């Protein structure tokens, strides 16, 4: 019963919105706002044909690579900065500045250096995704419990074991928070990087459709991006559930007290 109730709450609004859109647009003769039925028909034709391999998968590949590199660099730099007070003091102003630069403005600059190929697009994604991961990792590492750190020292737990079991696991709730923010930034940058100069990708296709007055196809691209975001955040939650099981467990125990 509770499960049914939850499923209802989860799906009620999306279904209502979808139905509202469907019926409101059903008789639409406006060229720019085609009926949803037309958009869905275009969706099927557009994205499950050759575009899947020429546009969707390359976009996803660049997002995946850029996001992975950003996670790696963000966590590595974040740990290094978080563990050293002097480094933190030295880098903090610069980091604040770099974080404040909106990543899309880097696209023209990166194009000069990295061309208009995959390299540039991955770099744009990395340059945007790295900040939330980096800054959250620094905070997480700084907040390592003193007693736990003393425990490691007195039991001579060092090196790789200390890095994993003390530093990274302690900081993991914050790292996950940063990674979640980075994921949405990454999707935005994936699209934007393809709108400037590209010959493939989701953002590129949507712009092409708009310029070619293929309006249902353009709308279907927006739908696809929305769905993509939902699927990625679901995957993220599954991973988070595994990685932070201990953290959610403690929170649940604390709520009971």
């Amino acid at each position: 019963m509770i499960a049914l109730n939850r499923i209802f709450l989860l799906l009620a609004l999306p279904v209502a919105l979808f139905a509202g859109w469907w019926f409101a647009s059903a008789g639409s003769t406006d060229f720019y706002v085609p009926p949803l039925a037309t958009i869905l028909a275009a969706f099927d034709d557009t994205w499950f044909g050759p575009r899947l391999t020429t546009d969707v998968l390359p976009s996803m590949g660049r997002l995946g690579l850029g996001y992975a590199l950003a996670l790696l660099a963000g966590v590595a730099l974040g740990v290094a900065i978080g563990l050293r007070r002097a480094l933190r003091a030295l880098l903090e102003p610069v980091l604040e500045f770099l974080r404040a630069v909106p990543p899309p403005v880097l696209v023209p600059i990166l194009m000069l250096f990295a061309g208009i190929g995959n390299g540039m697009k991955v770099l744009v994604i990395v340059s945007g995704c790295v900040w939330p991961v980096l800054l959250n990792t620094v905070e997480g590492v700084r907040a390592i419990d003193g007693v736990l750190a003393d425990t490691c020292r007195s039991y001579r737990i060092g090196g790789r074991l200390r890095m994993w079991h003390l530093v990274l696991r302690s900081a993991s709730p914050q790292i996950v928070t940063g990674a979640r923010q980075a994921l949405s930034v990454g999707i935005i940058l994936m699209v934007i990087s393809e709108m400037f100069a590209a010959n493939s990708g989701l953002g590129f296709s949507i712009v092409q459709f708009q310029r070619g007055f293929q309006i249902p196809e353009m709308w279907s691209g927006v739908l696809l991006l929305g769905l993509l975001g939902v699927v990625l955040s679901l995957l993220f939650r599954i991973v988070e559930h595994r990685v932070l099981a201990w953290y959610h467990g403690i929170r649940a125990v604390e709520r009971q007290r």
Partner: protein
Amino acid sequence: MLTVTGLHKVYDGHGRRVEAVGDLTFTVPAGRFVCIVGPSGCGKTTLLRCIAGLLPPTAGQVTVGGKPVAGPPDGLAVVFQEYGRSLFPWLRVVDNVELPLRAAGLPRTKRRELVNEALDAVGLADAHTAYPWQLSGGMQQRVAIARAIAYQPQVLLMDEPFAAVDAQTRADLEDLIRTVWQRFEMTMLFVTHDIDEAVYLGQRVIMLSAAPTRVADDLEIDLPDGRDQLGTRGGPRFAELRGHVYAQIQKAKLEKTGAEARPRWGPDRGAAQARGTSAEQRTREGRHLSAAEPKRPESI
């Protein structure tokens, strides 16, 4: 096994100079169970951290097994008061106990053997796969004790380990720690603010003065080795020893306030108020004096 010679520790920072440990000298022979008691805030934890090699002393020396301490020494384990924060919440009980052994590079079979033995010894044979936060406070502290035992230390330091558990659990853990000490034959240094606990557990009680800490008195506890909560605590000799320790601690506290009263309320008073610290110090001192009994643990 453990010697502390002329230990002196001053915290210097933010324009305030706090002399935590004045001048401490004592020796703990191998295999002995020694308790250290002192009034709250007397620098017990500072002393323990210096012995554990977690804090460099300002002057003086600590040796463990004949070797001077500079950093966490070999063959020494610490059980901290904050059991909830000294266990790794992302590791199961077994893995918590095993981690120091992995760091020490012991082979897997040997590790498993030691972990099982230690968890059996503290009565947690059936909690192997639980996470620490799924256990009660007393059981968490048992895990921390098991981790210390499995490490096979020659010296085990305990920093008010039972201060945060309820009274009944505390009695159980006290008996447990006596059993563990007798079974594994290590040298125990047990720091506490609880006078009864110190007399019940130790073969010897070292009483500390208020900060800056010195040894106020050093007392052999001539109670028989087989101790139990009812018989031992109810006996006349226990009451005598407890009374002696209690009197020494009270004396140490009074000496401290007597020595400090003059500058605080004398000509220096204006300056102290100008610094804005006098009111705070006064209330703290007031509480200190009125504390007839040492602080009891909060029950959970």
